[in-house]
């Protein structure tokens, strides 16, 4: 089984990884931990933009490598890849799915808004609608309960 796990730099990723570790997986499961870095457009100086982009990419690589090591260590005989892309999250996730042909995409519905329970998140919502494969949307149920 091939599974794409979409992560970002929020605390929710830690919750997602914990959920993955709590489950039983087939021995031959392959994970692709995917993150998409959106373009930085805040700096008028292109050198600063380049510097920030590279810095962010380095940090992302470090984080994803740590998650890969953890999943490989805890889930026996799993194969874990990491994939860092630049661009629009929805487009890149869908593109990765077409290229890699996973059975499932796992992503979070963590929300930065004031009413987390009633917001799927625009990226998750678009992927759920457009992906050709099964999509699982994870939620931190404790936080969702607090928002009721």
């Amino acid at each position, binding site marked *: 089984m091939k599974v794409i796990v979409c992560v970002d730099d929020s605390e929710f990723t830690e919750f997602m990884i914990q*959920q993955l570790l709590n489950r*039983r997986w087939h021995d031959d499961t392959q994970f692709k931990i995917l993150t998409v870095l959106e373009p930085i457009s805040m700096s008028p100086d292109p050198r600063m933009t380049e510097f920030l982009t590279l810095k962010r990419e380095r940090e992302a690589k470090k984080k994803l490598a740590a998650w890969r090591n953890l999943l490989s260590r805890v889930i026996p005989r799993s194969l874990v890849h990491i994939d860092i892309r630049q661009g629009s999250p929805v487009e890149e996730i869908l593109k990765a799915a077409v290229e890699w042909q996973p059975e499932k995409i796992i992503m979070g519905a963590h929300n930065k808004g004031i009413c987390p329970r009633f917001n799927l998140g625009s990226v998750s919502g678009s992927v759920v609608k457009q992906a050709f494969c*099964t999509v*699982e949307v994870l939620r931190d149920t404790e936080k969702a309960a607090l928002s009721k």
Partner: protein
Amino acid sequence: MNTATLGLLATNPEAKMKVLIAVEDKEFGETIIDYIKKNNWNTDTKFKILHVIEPYELDEGVDVTYLPFLEDTKEQARAAAKTLVNSLTIKLKDKFVNCSIESDVAEGNPKEILLKEIEKWSADLLCLGTHGRRGVSKFLLGSVSQALASHAPCAVLIVKKST
């Protein structure tokens, strides 16, 4: 995130999972069950297969002489629903002999019934198909699935027919 944070994460084999499987018809129900069977689950996972019968809405001014016919139709729908959930339960039991698998048929608005059931049964995961009768394309999410993906207070697995 640092290595100390990572150290705190560990597998929890005792984590019990309650999986609510919403089925709309035979075709999509079997797709979901087949997908679930392809996955590994802890032996203490609890499954519940639920089908919701939507109420028939009578247009204003409809001839009441049709009402007995409507009652018969409702009874037929209930019988078909029971057959559906029973057959899917047997399919799932084939694979997960030691897991608790129950089934139920409810009547009402699917979204409301499923949201209530998630709360009542404390489901951790809701599994459903992309769309049913109202779908117009396999790339469009059905209105019930979409609403549940947005509103469910638990994880939601949307099984696509192609997988």
